[in-house]
C-alpha cells in the first residue's frame, strides 16, 4: 500500500493529540511563547484524564494568570493577591472530597502571599499548589520579584539585581519542602517536549496524592517570561536553561517515602 495522503491521515480516528476540551474556546491572554498556556493545558489534561471535571475547584491568583477562570472550564474562584492558599484551605475544609488546587505565579505566591503559602504548607492542608516561577513580575511590566536571579536585569533593577542592597532570591520551593506539612514537592519546566511529559507526570502525582490526605502537594513550574526578559521566546527558553536551571534545579525535591 502506498503512503496515505494528507486527507487520509487527517481523519478523526487518526487523531493522536489535540487541545483538551477542558480549556474554554477563549483565546489565552498570554504573550506568545509564555509557559502559562502549556501549564494550563497540562493541568486540564490531567483533570480530564482522571475524570475529575465535576469534582475540581481551582483558585485563580492575581498576576498574569488572573484570568485563569476564563480559560479553565471547571469551577474556579478568584482570590485576593497572594491569598489563594487561604481561600483554597476554606474550600477544601468545606468540601473535603473535592480536588482543590491553586494556580499562582511567583509575585503572588513568593512575595505578597509568602505568609499564606508557608502557613498553608505548615498546616498540611490537603490542597495542591501549582506555582509558575518566571523570576519577574510579568503582568505589571517586568519589575524585580523575590525570585529574580542575582545580576538579572529587570525594569526596577536596570543594572542587575545587586544582592548587597536588594537581597538574595527566595527559593520558596526548597523552603516549604522542609516543612512537615508538605507531602510531595517537585520542580519542573514546560519548555521542551521531554520536560512537558515530566511535568505532566508530576502534576498527575500531585493530584493523586491529594486523595491520600497526607498533606500539601506543591509543583513548581519554572517558566520563561520573554516579554519581561526582553527576548524572543526561543532565546528566553535558552536563557532559562543557562541561568534559571542552575539556580532552580529541576526534579522532585520531596517525594513520599
Amino acid at each position, binding site marked *: *500500500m*502506498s*503512503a*496515505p495522503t*494528507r486527507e*487520509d*491521515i*487527517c*481523519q478523526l480516528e*487518526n*487523531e*493522536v*493529540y*489535540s*487541545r*483538551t476540551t477542558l*480549556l474554554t474556546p477563549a*483565546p*489565552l491572554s*498570554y*504573550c*506568545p*511563547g*509564555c*509557559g*502559562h*498556556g*502549556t501549564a494550563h*493545558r497540562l493541568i486540564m489534561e490531567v483533570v480530564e484524564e482522571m475524570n475529575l471535571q465535576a469534582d475540581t475547584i481551582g483558585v485563580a491568583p492575581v498576576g498574569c494568570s488572573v484570568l485563569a477562570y476564563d480559560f479553565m472550564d471547571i469551577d474556579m474562584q478568584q482570590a485576593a493577591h497572594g491569598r489563594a492558599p487561604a481561600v483554597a484551605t476554606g474550600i477544601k475544609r468545606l468540601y473535603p472530597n473535592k480536588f482543590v488546587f491553586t494556580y499562582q505565579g511567583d509575585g503572588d505566591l513568593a512575595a505578597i502571599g509568602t505568609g499564606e503559602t508557608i502557613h498553608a504548607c505548615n498546616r498540611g492542608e490537603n490542597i495542591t499548589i501549582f506555582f509558575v516561577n518566571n523570576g519577574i513580575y510579568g503582568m505589571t511590566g517586568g519589575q524585580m520579584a523575590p525570585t529574580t536571579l542575582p545580576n538579572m536585569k529587570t525594569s526596577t533593577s536596570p543594572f542587575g539585581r545587586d544582592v548587597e542592597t536588594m537581597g538574595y532570591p527566595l527559593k520558596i520551593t526548597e523552603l516549604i519542602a522542609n516543612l512537615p506539612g508538605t507531602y510531595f514537592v517537585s520542580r519542573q519546566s*514546560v*519548555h*521542551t*517536549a521531554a520536560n*512537558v*511529559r515530566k511535568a505532566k507526570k508530576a502534576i498527575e502525582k500531585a493530584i493523586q496524592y491529594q486523595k491520600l490526605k497526607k498533606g500539601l502537594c506543591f509543583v513548581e513550574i519554572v517558566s520563561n517570561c*520573554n516579554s519581561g526578559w526582553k527576548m*524572543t*521566546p*526561543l532565546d528566553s*527558553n535558552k536563557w532559562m536553561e543557562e541561568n534559571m536551571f542552575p539556580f532552580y534545579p529541576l526534579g522532585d525535591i520531596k517525594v513520599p517515602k
Partner: protein
Amino acid sequence: MAKVKGAIVVNIERCKGCQICVPTCQQKSIAMSEALNSKGYHYAMTINDECNGCINCGLVCPDGVITVYRKKYD
C-alpha cells in the same frame, strides 16, 4: 513492515507565532509562514512530508493550536 505517517493541523487564527514548535520537530517539518494571520503573526505550517506524528509540537505549543494525526500503513 508497518510504517507510520503523521500530519498536523494548525489553528492558524490562534497561532501566536512564538516558534517554540520549530526546534522541537525532529523531522524539521515545521516552519513559520510568510503570510500573516488576522492578528499579524506568522503562523506555524508544515513544509515537508516527513511528519511521523510524534506529538512533540502539540505538547510544547503554549496555545494548543496544533492537532496531530497519525496513521499506520503497510
